[in-house]
């Protein structure tokens, strides 16, 4: 008995000591200079549903690919330097993410940051980037709130979420004007109370005029809402032509199911996140899934380093439209390496300046970061221009229906 408790005590002390000792900088042996890129990812925890282990895998495979090609050419070093990616699991916990980004900055001493998952964690992580002057390129983060703080060390590859509706409504207008779609007059917006989905919902409500639609109601539901009976009842009474559901895929499944079962049949049902995963269709079934429109990050890209991109996806076991954020991660990391090449140096200020001025052709076309733009009533800096593509479930498959260059099919009316 005494031995056991002694052992427990010793084990605890050793663990604590070990943790403490690792704090002291070790005398590292001389190594070829690596470009250290660091970040955290929601590999476990609530946000990992949208990101998870695949995100880490994808980024690690990207780094391997870059190194297979010899690395990134840095003029100052007159050599191609390898990339070292350091990724931690933040467990979807903001406190932990802050500890880890601090660690990446001060202990791991990374040169650059990649963005984490989710708005709140990105806000916190970017604060650390700003504190230490470390360039950070986020991938999916697209809430104007993140980019409206006047930060100098932050850019993001994705176009702000409130603007997602612009592409969709522009498509609607063209289709309606051309007679490919019946004229719609009214729209009801249902939005889930999380920063991203509220942003998407903002676009749904405030950009409806692009297609000449009147908003009859905007309903907000709590995060992870599962019961929509009252809302569906209300909407049946209002009978909108278009129902715009700004919710995460799971919540969107619940809504679509209840709308179907309770007899809500709008002419057009647009659930942006419904085409963001191949799973959506199997979760709702064919009778519900057919004809639902959404948006996707992913498409059969025709430009940029597309072959390498698709090879990476294949390597990580991703097919079709799953994990569409891979395109954003790819572009964000690629932009970083391009900025390093253009700056010709690993000096953070030079790379940041290069990032801000960056223009090159990538998967979706010409990449450029915008500054001083106004989005959803906020002045934002450093937002990207990768748009999302309106898509539709047709015959159990996701088809991109807009723009023409990337469309694999045409819009099909639901009824």
């Amino acid at each position, binding site marked *: 008995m005494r031995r056991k*408790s002694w052992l*427990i005590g010793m084990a605890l002390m050793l663990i604590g000591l070990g*943790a403490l000792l690792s704090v002291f900088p070790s005398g590292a042996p001389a190594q070829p200079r690596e470009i250290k890129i660091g970040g955290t990812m929601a590999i476990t*925890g609530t946000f990992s549903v949208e990101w998870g282990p695949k995100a880490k895998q994808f980024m690690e495979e990207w780094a391997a690919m870059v190194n297979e090609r010899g690395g990134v050419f840095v003029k100052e070093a007159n050599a191609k330097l390898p990339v070292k990616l350091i990724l931690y*699991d933040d467990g979807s916990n*903001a406190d932990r993410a802050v500890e*880890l980004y601090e*660690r990446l900055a001060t202990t791991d001493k990374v040169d650059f940051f990649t963005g984490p998952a989710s708005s*709140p964690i990105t806000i916190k992580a970017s604060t650390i980037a700003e504190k230490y002057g470390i360039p950070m390129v986020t991938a999916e983060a697209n809430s104007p709130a993140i980019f409206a703080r006047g930060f100098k060390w932050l850019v993001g590859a994705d176009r702000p979420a409130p603007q997602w509706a612009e592409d969709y409504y522009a498509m609607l207008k063209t289709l309606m004007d051309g007679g490919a779609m019946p004229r719609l007059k009214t729209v009801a917006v249902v939005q889930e109370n999380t920063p991203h989905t509220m942003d998407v919902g903002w676009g749904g409500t405030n950009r409806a005029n692009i297609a000449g639609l009147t908003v009859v109601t905007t309903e907000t539901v709590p995060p992870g809402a599962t019961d929509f009976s009252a809302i569906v009842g209300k909407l049946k009474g209002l009978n909108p032509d278009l129902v715009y559901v700004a919710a995460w895929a799971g919540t969107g499944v619940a809504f679509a199911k209840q709308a179907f079962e309770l007899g809500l049949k709008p002419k057009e049902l647009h659930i942006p996140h419904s085409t963001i995963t191949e799973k959506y269709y199997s979760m709702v079934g064919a009778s519900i899934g057919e004809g639902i429109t959404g948006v996707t990050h992913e498409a059969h890209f025709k430009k940029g380093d597309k072959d390498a991109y698709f090879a990476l996806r294949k390597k990580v076991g991703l097919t079709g439209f799953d994990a569409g954020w891979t395109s954003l991660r790819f572009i964000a990391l690629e932009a970083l390496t391009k900025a390093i090449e253009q700056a010709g140096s690993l000096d953070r200020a030079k790379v940041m300046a290069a990032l801000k001025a960056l223009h090159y052709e990538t998967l979706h076309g010409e990449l450029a970061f915008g500054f001083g733009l106004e989005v959803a009533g906020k002045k934002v800096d450093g937002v990207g221009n990768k748009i999302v593509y309106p898509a539709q479930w047709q015959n159990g498959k996701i088809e991109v229906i807009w723009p023409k260059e990337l469309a694999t099919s045409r819009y099909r009316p639901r009824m």
Partner: protein
Amino acid sequence: MIALIGVLVLALLPLVLSSTFVLVMFLSFVWLVLTANYDVLDGFLGQINLGQGAFFGLGAYVVTILLNVGTVQTLGRFAVVLATLVALAVTALFAAVMAFPLFRLRGFYFAIGTLILIFLLQVFALNLTALTGGAYGAYVPPAFFMNALVGYYLALGLAVLSLALNYYLARSTLGLAFRCIKGDEDAARSLGLDPMKYKITALVIASVPSAAAGVLFALNSGFIDPGIALGVERSLLPSLMALLGGTGVVLGPVFGTAIVRIIETVVFHYLRLPVPSMLFFGITLLVVALFIPEGLLKSPRITRVKLFGKLASY
């Protein structure tokens, strides 16, 4: 005394620790405050209080909201002091008011009642967008950001204060009254004690340092949202840490918090195995629950070791 040496070591740590660990320790002190406060209700009154997170979140939100009000900002440096005092007062008032309905409940039902508090507050934080920023969260104006080192020492001080509070309770008539009520409420009443008065006092006492911890957290991190400030872990983890370390023992919270934070740090900062991180955490809990369920400093197996026995006697 061991305690003084411990505090001295902790006070000197920032000189040798990396900024990462200063942050890790800061957060650990915050958790320690919540855990020690939890133990006021559990260790002394024998009630499982799952509302510590509510006090923490309330403190964090009130201070952040006030620091964004124009008239408060004009007070300059004094604004932080004022906002903090208001945050503490609001939380204490909240605790006092909620104590009335809550203490009609006992045991399991009291635990559920207190748990409801943090959920309700989170819903309000999410929905009252004009006041709290809603899902988008609230920012502390950069002018009021707290320096990491200042935060460290303030949090350390607060943690010491909270433990000192428990130490005092363990030796005072107030604490004695609490334990009378814990043992047998009717007998206590027959002695002339008004249980309700003491229960309210306990809840208010347990709410103030936690609110202060919330204030420190907000000022140090600069951004809070309903998930960060009022997530259910802020209530559940303190009770877990207290149970792990041993309830009703002054230094119990220290060990409980240390165990959890050490495991967490080792798993997330160092081990990067291809298995999910939470798995380690879960398995540790399971093992502890089955082998030392009374808590570290209350388990006969552990306290047999002289050092632990001495620490448990505080």
